[in-house]
């Protein structure tokens, strides 16, 4: 009775083993097929034994070759005599391994592939064939090149930053040491007759310092902040801008003539528009012509649903034509007696750039200067977002 039982048990063990084998073969096959990497296995004669979908797509797409079982890479030699892949495969058939990255240009752009070709050996050390893996590494590559681009940009901005910090510290130091000197003198001399002049000097230097700091603040704000979209009242804007510069304009008796024409609301970035107007108006005040009986600043603003045109004109000293091309450069001074930090117009242009607007200057030395700014009205977007 024992024998048949043992026989039965042996037989079912074998069945189980075969079933397990089939099952694990199915698992492996599924992994092989579903992998995001391309796989090709050939025998030592470079005839394909097995390949998966990614490999099939790769050959179709880049070499226009339709893979099938029994495809021989050796026979492909005639069609692609120059293809390095075939050379690597032949070397691998002799036991060498190779790994390289190649790039392909195609309709959707450029893609990068990491390719590995390895000989396959059995446990006895006999070569059975070759395995080839193909991996799409485009996302890694593009991340790398983005990284490299960022590194270059940050290197450039580091240089700019060094330059900026150097210049700013110079600009800040000058008025501070002036004020220190005036105070020292005031103590030493104890001369009350000069008090008024000394105070005026201190005020002038502090005023300069104030302007520098505002400029720097505006500059960093412009480069960091996103463009806002809010309704802007230019009447209010001009009021605020003049408030900020009023100490000077009241004292110097400057006449403002303002006209604002609007046939709809204006939507835009109030912070940047204030920076722009403040810089242009304080320039118009700073470079007034003291020899003229009346200093006049004319502001004309025209708002329509597409854009706003702002013209700020003065009857000031004007800008000599040789300086005009460079007035927007950082730290550019148009004249010896230019009192600014050389940042105002630079920041103005940067802000206008950020708002996708334009600026134009028209100036005649001795007659005056007119700046014309055009900025898009984001009014249409307002209606679109409401719908």
């Amino acid at each position: 009775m024992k024998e048949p039982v043992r026989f039965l048990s042996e037989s079912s063990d074998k069945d189980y083993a075969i079933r397990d084998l089939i099952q694990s073969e199915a698992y492996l096959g599924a992994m092989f097929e579903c992998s995001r990497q391309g796989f090709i296995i050939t025998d030592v004669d470079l005839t394909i034994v097995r390949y998966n979908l990614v490999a099939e797509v790769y050959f179709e797409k880049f070499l226009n070759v339709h893979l099938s079982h029994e495809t021989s890479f050796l026979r492909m030699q005639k069609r692609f005599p120059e293809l390095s892949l075939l050379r690597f495969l032949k070397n691998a058939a002799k036991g060498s391994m190779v790994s390289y990255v190649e790039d392909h240009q195609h309709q959707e752009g450029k893609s990068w592939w990491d390719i590995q070709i390895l000989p396959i050996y059995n446990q006895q050390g006999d070569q059975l064939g070759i395995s080839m893996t193909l991996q799409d590494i485009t996302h890694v590559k593009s991340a790398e090149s983005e990284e490299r681009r960022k590194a270059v940009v940050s290197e450039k901005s580091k240089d700019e930053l060094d330059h900026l910090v150097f210049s700013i510290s110079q600009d800040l130091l000058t008025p501070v040491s002036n004020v220190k000197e005036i105070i020292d003198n005031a103590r030493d001399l104890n001369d009350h007759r000069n008090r008024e002049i000394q105070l005026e000097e201190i005020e002038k230097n502090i005023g300069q310092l104030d302007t520098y700091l505002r400029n720097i603040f505006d500059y960093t704000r412009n480069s960091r902040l996103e463009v806002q979209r809010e309704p802007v009242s230019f009447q209010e804007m001009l009021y605020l801008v003049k408030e900020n510069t009023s100490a000077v304009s009241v004292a110097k008796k400057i006449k403002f003539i303002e006209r604002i024409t609007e046939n709809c609301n204006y939507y835009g970035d109030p912070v940047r528009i204030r920076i722009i107007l403040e810089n242009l108006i304080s320039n118009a005040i700073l470079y007034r012509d003291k020899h003229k009986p009346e200093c006049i600043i004319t502001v004309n603003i025209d708002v329509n649903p597409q854009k706003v045109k702002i013209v700020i004109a003065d009857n000031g000293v004007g800008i000599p034509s040789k300086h005009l091309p460079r007035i927007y450069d950082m730290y550019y001074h148009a004249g010896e007696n230019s009192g600014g930090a050389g940042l105002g117009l630079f920041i103005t242009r940067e802000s206008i750039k950020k708002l996708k607007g334009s600026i134009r200057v028209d100036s005649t030395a001795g007659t005056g200067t007119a700046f014309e700014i055009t900025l898009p009205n984001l009014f249409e977007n307002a209606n679109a977002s409401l719908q």
Partner: protein
Amino acid sequence: MQMPVFNKILIIDDNQIDLVIARAVIRNYKPDATIITLNSAEQAFHLLSGELQCNMHPELILLDIDMPDFCGLSFMEKLSVHPGFNPEKTSVYFLTANGDDSIHQKALSINGVRGLLPKPLTSDLFTGLMKNHQFHITERAERKN
């Protein structure tokens, strides 16, 4: 009752805050109107005489009385004799913070002046102005009938 169509409105005031307020109040009721604000009566007259010649008259003018250099009264005196000025087409209202009655009487006596509004302009004042204006129009129409 249909509200008057003020498509083109001129506000003249040397006080920036009053301009900000007047513009905001009017814009609220007239989102599509052309609003022109000026802080100088002299420039306003210059602009206006050019536009009157081209028959591009504003339908409403709000005018401050107290302004340096060129005050609202002299502006209106000059405008009222301008050949292009037609008080039927252009309504003029004075805006004033001034309590002087004699000045008010003088202001109201100028040809073409419809009324006097205290500053600052408010929503109630502006809707009142529009109703009053409507009243004038219907009154005129009735008289014609």
